[in-house]
């Protein structure tokens, strides 16, 4: 049974084949955790020359550049670049608010995470995935290699939208558990009464390349409700009574735009990749065009 066939629910096999040609881009050279295919800031044992340095006692004499010794009569060590892997951090907001929309936002987040995760696994990168709601965390051990795709997909499919949202707490916990730098992608609707800024700021300060995928359902982008309603917050169960009116809808629209804009501006100001997407957007289009154009994948 192929991975593609097994995980057909999340990603189409044909799309997966196309994903295999892509790779995750990191803007900065990071330290990896194990040998891989990406340049590392470490000096290592690849064939690419990096630098010289003075010999100090204890250095392996095999790395001394004897030709240079012959010319300069000094012992210099020849350094080569190290090739290490990249860690892709997929942080998924699995709060109850993500369970809304048609298609719902958590489904979109699963498929987006599967897409990015599969790209990374295909490129022999390390993938760390965590889904959080409130203070609860659901995760799997970091995985690597295409063979881990099934495990990744199974994990993603098991994610359910429940509980509240505490973005900053979740990120702080995540960074504690996964200190390695790499590329961090957070997929969330950022509906957090305590604010989204703390979470993104922490991820950014961890040294990874951060991408924020701000996902909203079509119903949130353009509400079609009418009448006298009691709106009940899915997470807090607090309610607000409204009589839907044109003025209210206009005000909602401008507030929604302002909210999305505030996330975007916060991210852009910190060099964080940001994308505002609707949960009914096509994952293929998004990956093959928008993410490539945004420099996230290549």
């Amino acid at each position: 049974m192929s991975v593609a066939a097994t995980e057909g629910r999340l990603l189409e096999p044909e799309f997966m084949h196309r994903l295999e040609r892509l790779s995750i881009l990191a803007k900065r050279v990071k330290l990896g955790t194990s040998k891989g295919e990406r340049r590392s800031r470490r000096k290592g044992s690849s064939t690419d020359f990096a630098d010289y340095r003075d010999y100090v006692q204890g250095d392996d004499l095999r790395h001394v550049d004897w030709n240079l010794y012959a010319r300069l009569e000094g012992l210099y060590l020849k350094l080569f670049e190290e090739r290490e892997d990249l860690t892709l951090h997929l942080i998924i907001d699995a709060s109850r608010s993500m369970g809304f929309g048609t298609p719902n936002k958590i489904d979109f987040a699963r498929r987006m995470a599967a897409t990015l995760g599969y790209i990374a696994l295909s490129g022999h990168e390390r993938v760390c995935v965590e889904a959080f709601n409130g203070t609860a965390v659901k995760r799997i051990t970091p995985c690597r290699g295409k063979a881990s795709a099934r495990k990744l997909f199974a994990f993603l499919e098991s994610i359910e939208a429940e509980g509240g949202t505490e973005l900053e707490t979740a990120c702080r916990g995540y960074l504690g558990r996964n200190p390695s730098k790499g590329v961090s992608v957070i997929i969330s609707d950022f509906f957090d009464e305590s604010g989204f800024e703390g979470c993104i700021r922490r991820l950014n300060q961890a040294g990874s390349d951060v991408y924020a995928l701000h996902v909203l359902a079509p119903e949130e982008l353009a509400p079609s409700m009418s009448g006298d309603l009691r709106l009940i917050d899915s997470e807090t169960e607090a309610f607000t009574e409204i009589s839907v009116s044109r003025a209210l809808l206009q005000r909602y629209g401008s507030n929604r735009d302002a909210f999305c804009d505030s996330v975007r501006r916060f991210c852009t100001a910190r060099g964080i990749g940001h994308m505002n997407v609707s949960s009914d957007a096509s994952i293929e289009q998004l990956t093959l065009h928008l993410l490539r154009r945004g420099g996230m994948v290549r």
Partner: protein
Amino acid sequence: MNALASMLSQAFLAPAFLGFLGLLPVIVILYLLKLRRTPVVISSTYLWIKSLQDLTANAPFQRLRKNLLMFLQLLAVLLLAIALGRPFVRASGSGGASYCVIVDRSASMQTLEEGVSRIELARRKALDMVDAMTRDDKMMVVAFAETAEVLCELTSDQVRLRAALRSIEAADTRTNLRDVMMIARSLAPDNPDIASVAAGLQLVLFSDGRLADLDEVGVGTASLSFQQIGKSANNAGIVGFSVRAPAEGGDPQTFVLVHNEHSEALSSTLTLSFNDNALAVEEVIVAPGADQEVLFSHPPLGEGLLKVELDHADDLAVDNRAWLALQPSAQVRVLVVSPTDSTSGYYLKRALSLEPRAQVSAIAPESYAPTDDYDLTVFDGFAPPGLPTGAAVFFNALPPVPGLASSGVIEQPPVVSWDANHFVMRFLNPDSLGVTSALRLTLPEGSRTLVSSTGDVPLIADVSQGGRQVLVVAFDIAGSNWPLKLSFPLFLQNLISWTPRGAATGDSFIPTGKPVPLFASGNLTEATVISPDGSRETVALDPARPSYFGATQAAGIYTVEMGDERQDYAVNLLDRNESSISPAESINLGRGEVAAERGPVRQTRELWRWLALAALAVLSLEWWIYSRRAWI
């Protein structure tokens, strides 16, 4: 509470419907209980709360706006409730309505106001009203004095209305508003309130407010407009005139009662003349608003016309003169049909024989045979199969009147009420009448109970049928204390006067507007009546019963020529109410005071149509706002 009701009735035709205003707090309560909102679970209310806060902050009077729908609903209910209450305003000119113009043409309307009679002033105002009529307006004209007359039925033809109004002339009679209201009632037969609210008829009364029978009229005040005519109070008039029989060995006395309506004391002279020869002149001084009796003593006068005249130039002339036709008392022939040994028969015969006008015969029931020879037949404990020709009184017997029945006997029935307005009950007080037992009578339609006991059981009743005067006394007078009471001989005296011949004899006068009874003598078939203005009218006579001449609108002497016989009848106003000419500031119709109005006639204009339209507009706006959801 009554004050409030009275106030409301000045502004609303159907104030009871204002009870719908009670819906206002209901709406508020419903809003307080809040409308039921559909619960919808959404991902997050984060953006909605923010939007609501923004909207609240941006919108002034937001609290008010939040409840805009409620305020609109309250306004709509308020407008509808007020519209149901049928508010009205009084405004000059007309506006698509029906009016019943009622013109008082009684004697007091002859009063001159700066050279113009009140009736003319009323006519002018009514004509102005006709001029102000629109094409949609309708009007009817009713004139009334002693009787009411529809001069023009409901029409929008202004030519006919003007002609009808111009034909109104003041009479010398008193007023009888009840007839007018009967006419108004006939226009709206289903409406218990003769204000004819259902017919939309507005009553406009042109009068000086000197109306005698206001308490008998039940009119909703809202649809009646009382147009006060006249201002003058400058009048003094004769309101009482009679000749008293001479006391033992003395002269007869003529009694005159003078009323002074003016605000200044009256000092004038009264001239008494007999057959145009002056008998006496007395000076009379009457305080403002007071009455003064004047007594003339003179020798017995015999047959002729006694006239009294007040020498005073005032605004109403008709009450400055009065006449009495003095004539020998004609004998009223009375037959008492009573068992010979009957106690009650004894009382009856005894009391009747005291009345000088009565010529009493007695007969036992078994000897009774119907005859035309008697003006009054008194049946005591006996009823013949047919009624006699003249008036008949049945004591303790059931007269053969269809519909009259007796169902048993009541023991010791107390006297509860009596009808003092009936002729035979004049001057009587049957309060202390004690009866051991009486027949429990069931009266036919159109009868009049004169004395009633508990439960409206009649003790004495007028069951006159088809011109036959019939009275029934339901008890045996021997079983009562009545013969010992003053009311008994007075009752019999009234009975004598009640008969047509009794009414026409004696030193009497006939009030203006009342008919003159004519009795055929010999084989004459017609009589000629010469009115005070000299006009002659022929009246057909019926040998079996009296005929009547009714056109006695003018005060004065009416001469009846019957063959070679001539008889004078005095017709006088002699009415204090009409002599009190100062116009009333308000009239009380039993259901509230109607204030007098002056100036141009302000006709009632109902506002409910506008209010209903406004309510419709408000409801439409409310619905539009609700459907547009333009507000929170």
